[in-house]
């Protein structure tokens, strides 16, 4: 009876492994996004500490586009794999 309710030890390990990979993926995605958008948007003369209006605007757009590129290529890869 109990075995029907709770997953087996093996299933549990798989679930934990998958959850960990998912977390790592999200963290890595965030890091790449941050570094990429910093390189593209921030004036490297560092005249002040605050992000100026242009930089703020650029960052918003950079994040959005990065996300859409990721979604687009993800879809593209799924299609190409499905065609094999």
């Amino acid at each position, binding site marked *: 009876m109990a075995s029907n309710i709770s997953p087996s030890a093996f299933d549990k390990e798989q679930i934990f492994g998958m959850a*960990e990979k998912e*977390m790592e993926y999200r963290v890595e995605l*965030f890091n790449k996004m*941050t570094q990429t958008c910093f390189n593209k948007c921030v004036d490297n003369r*560092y005249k*002040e*500490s605050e*992000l100026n209006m242009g930089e703020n*605007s650029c*960052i918003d757009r950079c994040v959005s586009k990065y996300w859409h590129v990721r979604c687009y290529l993800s879809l593209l890869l799924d299609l190409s794999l499905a065609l094999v």
Partner: protein
Amino acid sequence: MDKNIISDLDNFPEEDKQRMSTMADQLQIRDSLRMYNSLVEKCFKECVNTFYRKSMTKQEETCVLRCAQKYLRLSMQVGLRFSDLNQGSSTTDK
């Protein structure tokens, strides 16, 4: 932590909750160290270009400080946008 994971945790036995929590903590520590390292590398590359002396010049100090502050502010802003996108809320083009 992701909202989905948090909601799932409610149905977990205590032992598994603890394990998931430990996993998230370790990941956070790793991420913080990684962020710190990339920040140092980035700002060093940007701001330190001469090596006549061992100590940093006033100009280099100022540059490094501003670089770090901009990076942290940018990271915060990216985090906010990232959350929005994750939750699938529509982004208005601007």
